[in-house]
């Protein structure tokens, strides 16, 4: 038994490609103690699963609460005069209109409007000392953080970029995440979705956001390393909480229809092609002022030539990244960018790009797996309804 050559694990990276020793997160000892299977990911030892297994970890997250260590991701505070307006020069999102304590999902674009990385931007402080100095909290992907920080320093040299090297990042996701986290951090239960609370001051500030990568209600906590380990241990002591690895993180986000950089979005995709037009600010569409704005505007006006879609396979065989997508007549019209088994869907699902003519929900297509044409249907995203917090009933 050996891995099939064309379908090896997209999550793991070859050690051959990294000469340097792998880094560890602040929770590394805890993962080892919990019996995690550690794999290389973005230059770090990361837990892909615990003894529970990926399917059980996935289902537990949607049923109760799962704790994820995502400390490998890049965290930084960008500050200076008009920081929001200046960062808008690099992203298509509306940052100037972002209220204090609110979070925006956006992307760094290159000169062609293609995606360099996707990220979350939070307005921490609207202004400091009565002047127009602003603070933005950024979370970027682990595999891109070195490039992203260099990009920021190169293009926004007048702003201060403070990388939070010594901070852990924990995600607690699931329907009881709020109830559980409220036992440990004050004031989280009523936080709106895509908002942030900062607890404490100075170097021991904790930033809690109501956000996540699973489609469930949940929180992400940016916290100094030692306190992060202590908080993780206290959360794992809660009966509702289980530790969750990157394997289930991937199946959860796939079911939620969320992109993974380097797979569903990369330097060959614009946000319009990636079906992320909703994240482009309305004012930004008209005014432009971000890299690739002309091409993005053309695509918004005329429709992109291809589009990211969801696919539901009829059978149980999975179709993975790289699988050709064909019409039922056998014409290749696209490729799968993420795919596998969805434990909550209890079936095989995928995302990929197809020529725009074949992107409508309900279109029947064939996914070419090991020479066989597997029937599939274009499905709307997400595959599983999202359960983000919608606030108290009126």
């Amino acid at each position: 038994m050996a891995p099939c050559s064309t379908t090896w694990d997209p999550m793991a990276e070859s050690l051959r490609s990294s000469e340097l020793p792998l880094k560890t997160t602040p929770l590394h000892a805890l993962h080892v103690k919990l019996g995690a299977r550690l794999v290389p990911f973005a230059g770090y030892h990361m837990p892909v699963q615990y003894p529970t297994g990926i399917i059980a970890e996935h289902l537990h997250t949607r049923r109760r609460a799962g704790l994820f260590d995502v400390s490998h991701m890049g965290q930084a505070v960008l500050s200076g005069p008009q920081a929001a307006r200046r960062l808008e020069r690099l992203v298509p999102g509306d940052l100037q209109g972002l209220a204090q304590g609110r979070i925006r999902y956006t992307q760094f674009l290159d000169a062609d409007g293609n995606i360099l990385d996707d990220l979350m931007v939070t307005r921490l402080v609207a202004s400091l000392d009565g002047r127009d100095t602003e603070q933005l909290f950024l979370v970027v992907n682990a595999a891109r953080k070195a490039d992203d920080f260099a990009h920021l320093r190169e293009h926004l040299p007048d702003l201060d970029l403070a990388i939070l090297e010594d901070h852990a990042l924990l995600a607690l996701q699931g329907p009881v995440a709020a109830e559980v986290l409220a036992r440990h951090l004050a004031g989280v239960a009523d936080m709106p979705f895509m908002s942030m609370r900062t607890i404490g001051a100075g170097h021991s500030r904790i930033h809690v956001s109501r956000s996540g990568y699973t489609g469930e209600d949940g929180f992400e906590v940016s916290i100094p390393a030692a306190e992060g380990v202590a908080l993780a241990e206290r959360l794992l002591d809660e009966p509702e909480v289980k530790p969750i690895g990157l394997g289930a993180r991937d199946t959860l986000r796939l079911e939620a229809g969320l992109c993974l950089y380097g797979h569903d979005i990369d330097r060959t995709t614009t946000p319009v092609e990636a079906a992320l037009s909703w994240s482009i600010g309305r004012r930004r569409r008209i005014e432009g002022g971000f890299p690739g704005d002309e091409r993005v505007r053309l695509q918004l006006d005329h429709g992109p030539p291809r589009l990211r879609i969801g696919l539901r396979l009829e059978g149980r065989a999975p179709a993975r990244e790289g699988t050709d997508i064909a019409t039922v007549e056998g014409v290749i019209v696209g490729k799968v960018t993420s795919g596998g088994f969805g434990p909550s869907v209890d079936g095989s699902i995928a995302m990929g790009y197809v020529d725009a003519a074949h992107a409508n929900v309900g279109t029947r297509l064939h996914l070419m797996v090991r020479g066989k044409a597997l029937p599939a249907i274009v499905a709307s995203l997400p595959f599983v309804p999202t359960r983000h917090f919608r606030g108290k009933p009126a």
Partner: protein
Amino acid sequence: MAEFRYTKEHEYIKVDGDTGVVGITDYAQGQLGDVVFVELPPVGKQVAKGAEAAVVESVKAASEVYAPVSGEIVAVNDELEAAPAAVNQDPAGRGWFLKIKIRDRAELDGLMDEAAYQDYLATIS
């Protein structure tokens, strides 16, 4: 009396007369993680020793399963379609993949017996 033989690629063959039941070992299923799908060959297919006989899909990746010996596929485990997790839960029992009619018994001599396989596992774990 059925006897187990093992390959270095962690397939087993449970030999009973001139047929053998083939599957993957407990070590293999643990390495794979949750099995979500098994692609089985058609009954009647001739396979050569070491050639691909089946594909097992876990949550994370697809893996090839090789024929431990040459022969004809005389049966496949249809129950795996509805219950692929049987491969994880009971790899040597309900999680069997296929039955081969053994063409050349001499090929069994090159496979490890139980003790040799356990020794082999100790060297790689």
